[in-house]
């Protein structure tokens, strides 16, 4: 259907049927009327003719032409349609005639002289002819059948009338015209009525529509005028009722909103007050935290400095001590000091983590190397307890990853160390496996399983609590702060991982943690075993099944045939197997003291049958004498358990390379001191040490001199600068925090204005806070050394920065590992001390406008914190230009709500800044606006603006400090 509107529809419905009916009726009636007129003409002609026939009977019968003439004259005179009348005798001869002569022939032309009435229709006229019949009248009482003269119905003559169509045609036209005008009038009438009806319908509808639109726009006071009737009126009343309901609802809602707004405003005011109070409290808390951190840093600094001295000088004494008792005492002192340093490091780590300042490094790392390093460090402890320490890294674990190796090492060390610590006998197995990989992150699970004392379920719940161990007696028995696991947990969580423990009391424990690490883009190519032993048989002999498995895993990827022998007694059986073509023997011992005899026997068997095949022995000891004995007995290589894939492969390669020297690869002992390596290496070097602490300066000097270096000493930056101007040094060790001139300033001065522009300057600091190192490096320092300083650290630095050629590989490696281990804990950031004094200085007031600013009030509102009060005041002043602009704009256009909002904000800002006048005036203006008392507002707002100007003009003049 067409998309017509109501108007079109009504017009269509009223006009089209009306028009159609009128047209049809018009056509019908006009045609009927025309036909009627024609027929009426004919009938009238017939009637006239027949009547004339009756009337002329006498005249014709009597031959009285005069009578007939009179008759037809009379007949024609009364009728304008009659053109002519002719009376003919029975022979068709003219008897009488009335009409124009021209028409006379028409009667004769058509004189077929009918026996009954006949009508001949022409174009312009019709001719009606009827016979004149004599009607007999019975005049005898008796029948007279013999009367020959009585001829019934004898035709006496004919009447012929010529009638014109003109009148009929005129009347037809008149009929047509009249009908046309009647139809037209009817149409106009119905159209007018339809339009009126349309107007009656559409006008109210349009009005209602407009009213609804206005109502929709929110003008709820609009009503529909009562212009309609019937249903439309009902609809209009309904709309009015709806609008009224909406208006009432809106008013009610408005009231509710105003009420709610008022409540909200009050709540906001309360919240603002609370916010300000909270802000003050937060600042106090931050201050407290900062003070705590500073205290911790300072304490760390203060404690590390003497510890540095204690450990350093103990090491110096130990080098020179000859008396075993003294050595024992000194060793105890060093161990105690080291433990104390460890505890301090733990506490520092924990505090950093708690403060959320622990930042993890993202650098390429080798997980196997990391594990190797950890196990190497911890191997002596396991050896001491005769524990089997096994590392199993599954083949699918990628080696090249990105993460914080130091922190992984720290966690691993902590857990493995705990495992060793709490295991009397048995084994500690470290497994690293890949759980999955998603979004480029490799999810690794590291499980450390021991056969130790185990943990009960109840103990597990407190295991990851700070300062707690499984048992309070544990601390006494095994030592430790109880922070290790908590720190590990936090670190692992930092690496998007989890920590857990599976354990039963007395049945050992499995501590596990997961980490998610990114893959490094570049893969390190794996060193391949030469084809010499590929596709040959390798016999692995070890009585510890897990170790056996671990060894197998380490070499099975190199395309060799592996045979495992879990008992020394069965070695001979394998050796005698002719089907084997052995290319390598790996012989592991769990406890050399117990298995020495069997081990030597097995070695002898191997060597007797396979004298040339490489034999690698793995021992559970660091005793070089024993390892040397193994080499003497025929071992190609002698490794210390636990061995890793890298070391094993390296060892195999060495064994196969006949030119390579037979070596004893041993694990690094963190206790091991640097041997008195070649002092002559640095004999030509001249270095400067700068520290304000005499002890530290002295220790540093001793350490450096131990390397054969020539050392100049400086107690502060100025002295350093002075020295630097005189002498060119190979290296400068610069303390940071010094009187007169700090290390940074001195460094910058040296770099800019001395001959030591290019000399490496190493920063020395006891601040172990995060970011300290980066801060120093970005300031221009070449490297960074955290106190306490060790010889290893110095050695590494010297190696790095001072040109020297001959440093043995072993020493280098040992030094590096020591340096890394030392860096694992104390690499903590520090808070610059100069920027944060430990206590607020006493306030010094400056108030040029006491009438406007109440300093005491401001101080009280800021919790007697002068710095806070100052900050609040400064904030207020900074906000004043914006507030003034808003108030002026709102005042100008009389936008009272915006003005109220701006004044309210200003009032809130004034509450804690010690500006009573401004606060009072803003409060007053706000009250006026709330009460909608707009008359007074412009004047009072003017006063407020004036006060704002005054306070704004005090910028920089009011001082709390």
């Amino acid at each position: 259907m067409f998309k017509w509107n109501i108007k079109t529809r009504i017009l269509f419905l009223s006009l089209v049927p009306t028009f159609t009916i009128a047209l049809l009726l018009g056509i019908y009636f006009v045609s009927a009327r025309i036909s009627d007129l024609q027929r009426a003409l004919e009938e009238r002609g017939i009637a006239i003719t027949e009547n004339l026939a009756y009337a002329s009977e006498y005249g014709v019968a009597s031959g009285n032409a005069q009578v007939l003439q009179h008759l037809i004259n009379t007949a024609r005179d009364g009728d304008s349609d009659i053109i002519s009348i002719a009376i003919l005798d029975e022979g068709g001869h003219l008897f009488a005639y009335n009409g124009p002569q021209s028409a006379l022939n028409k009667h004769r032309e058509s004189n077929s002289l009918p026996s009954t009435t006949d009508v001949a229709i022409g174009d312009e006229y019709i001719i009606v002819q009827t016979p004149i019949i004599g009607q007999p009248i019975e005049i005898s009482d008796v029948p007279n059948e013999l009367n020959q003269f009585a001829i019934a119905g004898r035709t006496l003559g004919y009447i012929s009338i010529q009638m014109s169509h003109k009148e009929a045609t005129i009347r037809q036209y008149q009929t047509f015209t009249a009908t046309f005008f009647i139809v037209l009038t009817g149409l106009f009438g119905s159209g007018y009525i339809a339009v009126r009806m349309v107007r009656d319908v559409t006008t109210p509808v349009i009005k209602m529509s407009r009213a609804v639109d206005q109502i929709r726009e929110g003008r709820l006071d609009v009503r529909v005028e009562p212009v309609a009737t019937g249903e439309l009126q009902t609809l209009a009343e309904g709309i009015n009722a709806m609008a009224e309901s909406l208006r009432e609802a809106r008013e009610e809602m408005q009231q509710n909103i105003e009420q709610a707004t008022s409540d909200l405003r009050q709540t906001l005011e309360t919240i603002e007050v609370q916010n300000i109070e909270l802000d003050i409290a937060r600042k106090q808390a931050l201050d407290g935290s900062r003070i705590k951190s500073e205290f911790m840093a300072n304490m760390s600094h203060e404690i590390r400095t003497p510890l540095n001295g204690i450990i350093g000088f103990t090491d110096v004494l130990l080098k020179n001590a000859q008396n075993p008792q003294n050595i024992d005492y000194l060793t105890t002192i060093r161990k105690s000091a080291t433990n104390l340093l460890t505890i301090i490091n733990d506490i520092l780590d924990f505090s950093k983590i708690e403060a959320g300042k622990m930042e993890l490094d993202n650098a390429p790392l080798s997980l196997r190397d990391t594990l190797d390093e950890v196990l190497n460090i911890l191997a002596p402890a396991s050896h001491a307890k005769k524990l089997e320490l096994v590392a199993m890294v599954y083949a699918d674990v990628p080696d090249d990853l990105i993460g914080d190796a130091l922190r992984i090492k720290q966690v691993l060390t902590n857990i493995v160390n705990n495992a060793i610590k709490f295991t009397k006998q048995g084994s500690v197995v470290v497994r690293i496996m890949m759980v999955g990989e998603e979004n480029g992150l490799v999810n690794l699970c590291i499980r450390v399983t021991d056969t130790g004392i185990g943990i009960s379920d109840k103990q597990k719940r407190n295991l990851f609590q700070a300062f707690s161990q499984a048992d309070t007696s544990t601390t006494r028995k095994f030592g430790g702060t109880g922070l290790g696991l908590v720190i590990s947990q936090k670190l692992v969580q930092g690496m998007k991982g989890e920590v857990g423990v599976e354990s039963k009391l007395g049945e050992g424990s499995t501590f596990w943690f997961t980490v998610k690490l990114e893959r490094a883009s570049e893969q390190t190519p794996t060193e391949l075993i030469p084809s010499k032993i590929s596709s040959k048989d390798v016999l692995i002999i070890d009585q510890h099944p897990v170790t056996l498995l671990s060894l197998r895993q380490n070499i099975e990827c190199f395309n060799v045939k592996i045979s495992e022998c879990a008992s020394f007694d069965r070695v001979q059986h394998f050796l005698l197997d002719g089907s084997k073509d052995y290319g390598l023997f790996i012989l592991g011992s769990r406890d050399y003291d117990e298995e020495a005899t069997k081990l030597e026997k097995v070695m002898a068997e191997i060597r007797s049958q396979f004298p040339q095949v490489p034999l690698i022995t793995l021992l559970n000891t660091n005793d070089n004498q024993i390892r040397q004995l193994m080499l003497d007995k025929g071992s190609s290589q002698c490794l210390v358990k636990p061995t890793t894939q890298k070391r094993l492969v390296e060892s195999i390669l060495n064994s196969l390379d006949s030119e390579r020297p037979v070596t004893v690869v041993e694990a690094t002992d963190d206790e091991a001191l640097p041997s008195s390596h070649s002092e002559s290496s640095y004999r030509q070097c001249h270095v400067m040490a700068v520290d304000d602490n005499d002890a530290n300066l002295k220790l540093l000097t001793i350490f450096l001199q131990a390397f054969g270096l020539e050392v100049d000493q400086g107690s502060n930056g100025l002295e350093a600068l002075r020295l630097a101007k005189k002498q060119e040094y190979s290296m400068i060790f610069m303390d940071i925090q010094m009187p007169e001139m700090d290390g940074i300033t001195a460094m910058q001065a040296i770099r800019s204005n001395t001959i030591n522009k290019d000399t490496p300057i190493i920063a020395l600091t006891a601040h172990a806070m995060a970011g300290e190192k980066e801060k120093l490096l970005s300031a221009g320092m070449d490297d960074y050394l955290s106190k306490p300083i060790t010889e290893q650290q110095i050695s590494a630095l010297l190696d790095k920065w001072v040109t020297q050629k001959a440093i043995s590989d072993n020493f280098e490696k040992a030094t590096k590992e020591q340096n890394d281990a030392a860096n694992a804990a104390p690499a903590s950031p520090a808070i610059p001390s100069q920027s944060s004094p430990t206590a607020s200085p006493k306030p010094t007031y400056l108030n040029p406008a006491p009438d406007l600013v109440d300093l005491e009030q401001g101080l009280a509102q800021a919790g007697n914190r002068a710095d806070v009060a100052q900050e609040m005041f400064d904030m207020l002043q900074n906000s004043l230009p914006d507030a003034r602009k808003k108030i002026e704009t709102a005042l100008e256009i009389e936008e009272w709500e915006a003005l109220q909002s701006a004044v309210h904000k200003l009032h809130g800002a004034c509450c804690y800044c010690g500006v009573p006048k401004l606060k009072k005036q803003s409060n007053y203006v706000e009250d006026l606006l709330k009460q909608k008392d707009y008359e007074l507002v412009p004047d009072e707002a003017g006063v407020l603006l004036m006060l704002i100007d005054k306070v704004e003009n005090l910028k920089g003049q009011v001082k709390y400090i």
Partner: protein
Amino acid sequence: MRLALSCYVRKTIFLPLLVLVSCLLLPQIAASSNDQQAVPNTPATQPASPKPALVALVTHGTHSSYDACLIGIRSGLQAEKHKPDITSINLKNTQPISWDKFQLVVAIGSKATSEILKLGLDNKILAVLLPKITYNQLVYQASDKYKTGTNISAVYLDQPVGRYLALINALAPQAKTVGVMLGEGASVYEAPLDESQHLYQLQVRHGYVKKGLSPLKALGTIIDRSDVLLALPDTSVYNSNTVPGILLSSYRKGIPLIGFSRAYIRAGALTGIYTLPQELGYQTSQKILAIHQQNYQKLPQPAFPDSFDISVNYQVARSLGFKNVELNKLKQRIAEHVKGENF
């Protein structure tokens, strides 16, 4: 079910039987009816020692006037002891009749008379209910044996001319001239008219209607000179075709027309004098009795009706200005005038 069956039996058996019986009986009933009409009143089979005389009352077709005439005849004979047996015969319906048995044949109406004369019967014939002029023309056209007047006689329907004039005199005493149109039988009326006009002090204007011409033309010649127009039963002048014109002409001229029958008076004549068929029948019965008494040897002379009657068309009377026309007085005056006349 039973009712429907009985209805079916009734329809299929009794209805055909009923139709069959009806078909058989109806022709017999019709035949008996015809016999009664055709057979003479006195049954032929009835033995009678002297053979009664037999008179045939013959009509041609049926007409109320014939019936009235027959009633008049029968009523006139009914009271008489010595009377002939009469038989009604309708020539239009009956089979050939043996006329010999009839001593007298009474022909009622001009058609019956004409047919009887055509038969050339030897029986005595009495013609009734026909104008004198018609009787004369029939006899003239008939066999010579009728021209002697011994075998045939008549009782005329029309009145003697004097009665018409008497009527005119009685109705319009001031009338002086009487227009009369005469046709082919003008001779029948000319002499009586001439004789009577003096008697009634009237002057008759004759208008002759030539054969084949409209009588209105003749009328035109006399109407303007006549006070009263008299119509006579000459069918060559006054017939049903000419009468309308004559009536209209006389009406237009305001000339009263005196007719000769009740029908003429109803058609537009002012008044007329006539005899009713029943009375004429009665007069005929008296004639029959007289003939019977003379044993059918001699027939009386033809005669005009003894009695007459007068009617007035009061509508025409009012139109023509005749007021207070009283029939009884007219009758009385006519009766006084016509005593002893026999024209």
